[in-house]
């Protein structure tokens, strides 16, 4: 019997959680950062696609937690807790944070590196170790995580796909 491997897609400023054998994917990360939180033994993983480092940058009344590093990682951890994952068993892999263009307002140019810094700070605060990362540079990335193998596939236009 053929088992169809279902891929759950996560959009920009969004997040979701999958259990094996499903995989989880987000496309076209530029300055945004994709954060994977996973539990290797339970084979459950969450993916978050953040746009901005800090929720205090938000100027709208309704806060979309998944848009910011500081609120999104915590919210994803809460989602995983609902699935029975203990925060202590979580590990992280991250990708993205490119500088796609070299101009704009200075804050905007640096948004990729700032997103990466903010993600790392928040993971440190929550004591979640980062096991692999592919960040920076000036290329877009599409990432897919398989909770069975705990491998993060990172595809770029020029360098093909690598596995982290």
């Amino acid at each position, binding site marked *: 019997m053929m088992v169809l491997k279902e891929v759950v897609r996560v*959009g920009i400023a*969004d997040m979701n959680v999958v259990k094996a054998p499903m995989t989880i994917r987000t*496309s076209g990360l530029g300055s945004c950062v994709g954060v994977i939180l996973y539990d290797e033994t339970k084979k459950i993983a969450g993916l978050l696609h953040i746009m901005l480092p800090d929720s205090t940058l938000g100027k709208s009344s309704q806060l979309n937690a998944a848009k910011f590093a500081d609120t999104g990682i915590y919210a994803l951890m809460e989602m995983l807790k609902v699935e029975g994952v203990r925060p202590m068993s979580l590990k992280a892999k991250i990708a993205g944070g490119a500088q*796609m263009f070299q101009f704009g307002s200075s804050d*905007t140019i640096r948004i990729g590196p700032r997103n990466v810094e903010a993600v790392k700070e928040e993971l440190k605060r929550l004591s979640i170790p980062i096991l692999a990362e592919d960040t920076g540079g000036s*290329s*877009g*990335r*599409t990432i897919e995580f398989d909770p069975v193998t705990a491998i993060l596939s990172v595809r770029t236009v020029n360098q093909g796909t690598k596995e982290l």
Partner: protein
Amino acid sequence: MTSENHITDMHLDVLKEIGNIGAAHAATSLSELLDRKIDMHVPNVKLVSFDEMFDLAGGAEAIVAGIFLRIEGDLSGSMFFVLSLESANHFIRRLIGDETFDFGASTLPDIGVSAMQELGNILSGSYLSALSDFTGLKIYPTVPSLSVDMVGAIVSFGLIEVSHFSDEVIVIDTQIREEGETGSTSIDGHFFLLPDPSSYITIFKSLGVM
């Protein structure tokens, strides 16, 4: 007004008119450059989620040649001219007279990149000067920058400003098309004008609709 909540159908019609005027001028410039007839579609103006914005440009993962520039002055916002690789190749090959030029190559010859940036200059310049004449607003475009990459990675850069305020963006999307001779490739591209939320009120005031 800091959000799109108060945008009415009439306001969207005004933005559509702005897209019409801007793109008509850009289409004229392009047809002069190519000595071909260029078709311009009536712009589509709508409030979309960020993911829908990527879909308009072919899907987050689609590989495109994207010209990006910021607009500064009385108005601020982002502007993109996005071409599929096939369309970009077709255009630049004709412009520089080199049939082997390929945006898919790992290293791009400078002349093709320059030609593409110049195309961005000409088209965005004519688009924005028409917009400036129409509204009486001072508009300064930055030098356009080219990236050949995934749509999501390119366009999300222009959404950063908007994302501070909202999870949605007003996009003035104009499709620009060169009808090829029978069986030949045609150019099929999009202009996306994404005004920063703080600029909507400026636009509407300048046109007396607020």
